[in-house]
């Protein structure tokens, strides 16, 4: 080819707007309902190895058997496993827009009743006294009092419980 190879991109704007409908299914639906209506976190259990399945789901990932119809409450309070200060604004991944974060720390929580490696989750952490933060301390959730949707966003953030 004798022609000069282009050194710029060809720009063809192509905006795809795909609206997805994600089903909750029976297990997530129960989780969402308990959270929205009762401010409770619920899990189910494997009938074979007895492990807690949190978030609740159709089957045990270790045993590949259908979960038992046996529901237990976990958390919502728990143990702080890890925390990190957030150094830049967050992006709301549903819109791509910059969002104001509900708290200045992110954390990993081991909810009461759950073993490490079997259903710990991350959330926001609102911190008044950063110098008192330490791994292993107790954390409690602060729930939205109104217009709960049944997602983990119904928990506004966690707060450390200072001894």
């Amino acid at each position, binding site marked *: 080819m004798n022609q000069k190879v282009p050194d710029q991109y*060809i720009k*063809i704007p*192509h905006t*795809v*707007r*795909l*609206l*997805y*409908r*994600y*089903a*909750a*299914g*029976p*297990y*997530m639906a129960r989780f969402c309902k308990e959270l929205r209506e009762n401010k409770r976190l619920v899990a189910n259990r494997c009938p074979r190895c007895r492990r807690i399945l949190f978030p609740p*789901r*159709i*089957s045990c*990932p*270790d*045993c*590949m*058997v*259908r979960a038992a119809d046996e529901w237990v409450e976990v958390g919502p309070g728990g143990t702080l496993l890890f925390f990190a200060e957030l150094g830049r604004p967050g992006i709301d991944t549903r819109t791509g827009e910059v969002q104001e974060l509900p708290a200045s720390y992110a954390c990993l929580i081991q909810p009461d009743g759950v073993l490490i490696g079997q259903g710990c989750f991350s959330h926001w952490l609102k911190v008044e006294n950063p110098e008192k933060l330490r791994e292993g301390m107790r954390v409690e959730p602060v729930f939205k009092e109104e217009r709960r949707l049944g997602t983990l966003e119904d928990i506004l953030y966690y707060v450390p419980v200072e001894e």
Partner: protein
Amino acid sequence: MADRVAIVAVAQTKYEEARPDRRVFELAFEVAERVLEQTGLNNDDLDIRVTCSQDHLDGMGISDVPVSEVLGAQYGAEEKIASDGAMAARYAFIQILSGHYDVVLVVAQCKESKVDQNLVANLAFDPIYHRYLGLDFLSAAAMQANRYMHQHGITPEQCARVVVKSLKNAKNNPYAQRAMDISVEDILRSPVLAYPIRQLDAKPVSDGACAMILVREDRAKRLTDKPVWIKGVGSCYDAFYLGDRELADCDSLAAAAKRAYQMAGITEPLKEIDVAEISAEYSYQELLWSEGLGFCDPGEGGRLIERGVTGMDGELPLNPSGGLLSGCPTHVAGLSRIAEAVLQLRGEAGARQVPGAKTALAHGFVGPCGQLQCVMILGK
């Protein structure tokens, strides 16, 4: 070939217009659970899982991740085929022949109701040359139908007969989404989607899943008294650009069929095959694919159905299940065709059983106008 490969269990969900009650990977678990029950196998017995799905349809990047969790792949192995389900089964077949694995679980799952199919299909086309034209699989199929019908004198009535046959057969299939007695006139009166394809010429939007277990020969006897053997497989790609193909023919399907027939030792497909389950998303495709599969000469697809050759009482019953026109999601389609062929060979096809079926053909494809074709021959 050093070893033979058997299919020892199959399961399908009922296909439905929408499943708001289940997450897509829950559908995958439900069919996988049933093939484990049928064989008495458990998670530890599976050497690997092959799954089949497509990210844009699932609305997730690398969308097999939640599926592998429910299929026991945690601390195990899973590979995804983002293609038709028949290609997933073909891949499992090759894995076993390679000697690496003895027992493979294959699962395809899809909820077409999740997102607009035409918008997703547009992403399959070249972003600079073709997408702006608004091409999707429906408009591409309409171009192929026009070209095929013009070139060979195929009539809309002949295409409509495919729908009449399919939806009538589907009345005998408990997994079918759409089944009815309907007339050629009803079909020709239904609204045009993209000329000459009318609403009833096209497969409906569908949700569902299909699973099967493939094993090496020496494992088969302990798992079932009715193993179904994979006798031959062939696959072939056609050109990416539609303009590089003669759309009135289906050369890639003919090549895929030739490979499968050679491996299975089939020289006269119409005579030697007892039942065929093929993937036709639009009515004209059953006629065109029949030509590619060598059931008749090129251009003779219309007369093939008129003569009743492919009816339930004909020489080669084609789609006793009702096929895709009776409802089955893309990606699941080819695997479901294989599952139906297995049921036929096991004598477990109920009211849609072809008596005494010994050799069956299953077919799947993916891409616009049947770009990638896969043919599998199965036997008792």
